[in-house]
């Protein structure tokens, strides 16, 4: 067991973890944060995407011990985030989710695209989404939702 101290959704967490414990299991099983889903456990599907120190990361291939000192933000930590509120409205409007299993990871990636690449076109959005698999929607609503949030943000910021 190794002692780690980190921030999860703004709260300080101090725990002993087994060295082989990956971050997503640690969050789900020890902190009861079950919003982050597991789809492949080998870093391909993106279902487990969350933020580590402000950047999207795959929590299935991150070890909890490696997150000592880090700040982790899971889907539960985005409830009141203004961008996420817009994205949730757009995902709902554009039918960007069906079973919802990929959705938490998809939203974290979407938020990253919207904030990091405000001028991305549809092709770039699709490229950026290539690390998140959805088996239900064919990505149609997901891409539309992201495009619409970007457009709305641009027009509200005076169309920089």
């Amino acid at each position, binding site marked *: 067991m190794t002692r780690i101290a980190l921030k999860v959704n703004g709260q300080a967490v101090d725990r002993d973890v087994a060295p082989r414990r990956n971050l997503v299991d640690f969050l789900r099983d020890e902190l009861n944060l079950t919003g982050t889903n597991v789809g492949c456990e*080998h870093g391909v599907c993106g279902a487990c995407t969350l933020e580590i120190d402000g950047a999207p990361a795959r929590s299935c291939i991150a070890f909890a011990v490696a997150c000592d000192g880090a700040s982790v933000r899971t889907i539960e930590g985005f*409830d009141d985030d203004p961008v996420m509120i817009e994205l*949730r409205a757009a995902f709902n409007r554009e039918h960007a989710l069906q079973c919802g299993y990929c*959705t938490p990871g998809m939203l974290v990636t979407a938020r990253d695209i919207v904030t990091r690449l405000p001028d991305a076109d549809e092709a770039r959005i699709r490229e950026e989404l290539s690390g998140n698999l959805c088996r239900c929607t*064919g990505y149609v609503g997901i891409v539309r939702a992201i495009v619409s949030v970007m457009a709305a943000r641009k027009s509200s910021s005076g169309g920089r």
Partner: protein
Amino acid sequence: MTAPVEAGAKGVGASLPRKEDDRLMRGRGEYVANRRVVGLQEVAFVRSPMAHARVLAVRKPEGAEQQVFVLADLDGVKPIRAVCGLPGFRVSELQVLAGDIVRYVGEPIAMCVAATRAEAEDLAELVEVDLEPLPVVADMLAALTPDSPKVHAHWDRNAFLESMVDDDLSTVKRDAAIVVRRTVRTARQCMAPIEGRAVVAEYDRRLDQLVVHSATQMPHINRTGIAECLGIDQASVRVVAPDVGGGFGYKGILLAEEICLGWYARRTGRPVRWLEDRYEHLSGNANCREHHYDITGYADASGRLLGIDCEAVVDAGAYSLYPFSACLESAQVSSILPGPYVMDRYRCHTYAAATNKPPILPYRGVARTGVCFAMELVLDAIAREAGREPWEVRMANVVPSDAMPYTNITNKYFDSGDYPECLRRTVAALDVPAWRARQTRGEPDGRRVGIGLAIFCEQAAHGTSVYHGWGIPMVPGHEQCFARLSPDGALELRIGTHSHGQGMETTLAQVANEVLGIDPARVRLIHGDTALTPYSTGTWGSRSMVMSGGAVAAACTVIAERVKAIAAHLLEAAPADLELADGDVRVTGTDHSMTLQEVAHAWYRQPQRMPPDIDPAGLETTAGYKAVRDTGTFSYACHACAVAVDTELGTVEILDYVIVEDGGTLVNPMIVDGQVYGGLAQGIGSALFEEMPFNADAQPLASTLADYMLPGATEMPTVRMEHMTIPSPITRFGQKGIGEGGAVAPPAAIANAVNDALHDLGVEITECPITPRRLLAALAEAKAGR
């Protein structure tokens, strides 16, 4: 049949945003893996590393006797048997943990229980299994040869079932000016929902009941199956399917794992869970789509179909599983191969071959994807022979509009539709002349452009007679809904089907709105729990919107009558003069009304206000439903696309994709679109990417999502979709099942487009997925042959 949808309408026909989204987007979905239980232990299975072997010994690690379990420990547990009712079916038995023989890679051999999955896996590694290899049957065609080793030693042939639709083809053979014979093959696939299978088993001492949370599409069927295999009363089992992360057929099955965990929870009283990981899914559960066709089409010189002759083999894997059995897929092949076409003669011989591969399960579209692929390739080949545009040949062969309803050559009753119009609209939307002109000009980058289309019809929500006719061990009957108007005027609906992405919490609330005028926001759907819902065969076969939609409407109709009876008394009006709208009961043509809430309040809390002759059954009821005919709705669609083929790299890019679909009355058009788009993505996966290769030892060769390619956002083209909404005359609102169709036509449409691009090079692809390796091999072969 349905009026145009008014703005702000919330009933049938409205694209109402989904009620279920909010919790799922906030990470509050309750999937099986999220279930927290004190003392929960985890399971890892020891699985067979060989495709066919005799199990000589399984040695538990020392000191772990109470944590590792083999078949001999599972006293009283029966094997899984799914016996098809058709004559000649050869019966298999899957022991829930291996008996003497293992028959596919991934078959469970021992169950290991520990505090965490990691520790359970550690334990599994210490279990010693002695296997003696047996000859492996890896290929379905070789399996059927007389000297093939046998998957089940006591069988005389590696076939669960052989069946024949026979006809005399001598006249068509004599008259045909065009004869095309093709060998067509589709690869084995993984359905790959992003959530794998998942089971949590607990024992409820108070009720003496095993409670199984399982990621299933059919909780009642699992309950029946678990009880039967454990040899206990069904009352002693409760199955809960909470939020489920996608099904597509993968979760329409009674699992050996459920029975193992159920046995353990009952035996020890301790809760236990198993979460299938991606490795288990990919390496042990590539279980769908693998077909082989030797198909001949006979046509006259103009391309009019005279007959089809086909020998079709479905690789059904090693065992027949419950509830769909090893025969559903092959039974479908022979009955639906003729597709939307008229023909004089039809002969089809099918085999459900047994191999040392995972047992087959019906994937979205079931046999339709393979059948459509085979048939539509043949139609294109006929068109080339006839020197006509493929769409023209189809126009000459589809069931004419004025022939509907139509009974086809295999006795399928096409309830409604306009196939020629569907073709016309698709061809117009794709703009065939523009693509032909572009083809003539050539591409500046040297790629070759081609266009292709595929049309199919899809029997959905098919009922008793169809499933009985196919001999499937599970035969659907009537569907029920329990409805209750609660004292606060909200409506509770309980149904036995399950929603795992289909959005039924929304669409069934729309149905309730349609009948009762209640706001969908005040409707709560309860599903996925055998303790709380009416028995049902569950969600499969694009049946839920037709069957549960019909049942919800039936139950709401009863509630509406009872509401009117109460309101009539309170409003001093005749029930016949009352109407339900916007949450009110109103005397028609007046402003004299009361709310549903007031009616419910009066019934529950002021019974003194009720008249003496009021129906004591009150504001709750269970009502049942069956469509006017149980032969199913026939939705249909035409898919057309344009592709660019790079003959150097062997890659295919989809430049345009058009779908014209008839799902009848669309209860929620937004959700229908979503179903079709999702199906399309899976169909594009089948067409271009997804394949589980097996080597000669039937070892699966793709064990991660980096080897098994699922389509991502960049692989999806922009799609244009149009709807024809010809109501089904046999369902409650005219709705047709459309959950699967999107996945049916893409391999055919895309392959036809690729062949259109390459036919002057002498290339004709008849296998999918059309991977660069396959395409380059075909190009090289054509070059060598010229």
